[in-house]
């Protein structure tokens, strides 16, 4: 194999590695879609809970500063980490939630959320931090 071939194969592999590795890292840190250096709080009513793989969702009906109705879209863990929500997060429950906000401008998304009841009592395992539970 000539030096030229060696170089081209090495380049292809190097580029392939960079392209592959970057999104994988983003996936595990959720840093591509959410700003983990910030924390937002919201309160509202549980409208819908989607328990599915690879990620589940909780939808919260809430209001913004001006009293306009908004929907918080909260990205959660996979099915196995969501067993607690069946009893602890019923539809219509009034909850408070805090988590890392979505980077998308104008959106109301968050992840890494911890839930409490309106009076501040934690909901779910590990003091309300129910998702991404390490096993």
């Amino acid at each position: 194999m000539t030096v030229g071939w060696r170089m081209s194969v090495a380049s292809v592999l190097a580029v392939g590695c960079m392209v592959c590795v970057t999104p994988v890292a983003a996936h595990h840190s959720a840093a591509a879609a959410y700003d983990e250096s910030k924390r937002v709080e919201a309160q509202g009513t549980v409208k819908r809970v989607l328990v599915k793989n690879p990620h589940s969702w909780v939808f919260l009906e809430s209001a913004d500063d001006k009293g306009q109705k908004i929907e918080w879209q909260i990205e959660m863990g996979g099915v196995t980490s969501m067993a607690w929500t069946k009893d602890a997060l019923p539809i219509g429950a009034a909850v408070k939630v805090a988590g890392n906000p979505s980077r998308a401008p104008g959106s109301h998304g968050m992840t890494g959320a911890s839930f409490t009841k309106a009076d501040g009592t934690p909901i779910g395992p590990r003091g309300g931090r129910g998702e991404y539970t390490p096993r």
Partner: protein
Amino acid sequence: MTDFPTWLQGSAVGVWTRESPSIWAYPTVLTLHTMGLGVLVGANAVIDFRLLGCAPRLPIASLIPLYRFMWAGFALNALTGAMLFASDATVKAGQPVFYIKLALIACALVVTGVIRKTVERGPGLHDADPIAAPGRRLAALSLLLWAAAVTAGRLMAYL
């Protein structure tokens, strides 16, 4: 009447893969999809690198049984891939990168088939000699296409 992706997503296999809390559902299917990829693309890479001149003492004819492993890996991934597609069909069917991935796999399979013919026919591929330029070009193209197919597959989770 519902369209095909909607029907597929609501089918038993789609619902089970997406929503079952069983460790044998989504986690296992996704893991098997990665293992099948490892066997298929890994065995391909062995032959491609051999044709590019790596491991010159390895007789090329001795690598032919690897094609059986490739097909096993491909069959496993066709099955698990169909299940993963079913679990999220309405989204995946709308992703351009999914069709790019399928096209790249089709092209890579064609190149793999051509390389197999070259490997089996033998003449021009004397083990001690440097492999002829067309063989090397095919091998490099094969590596590139499989790497691109893997990349497109990985990007489906992000685009």
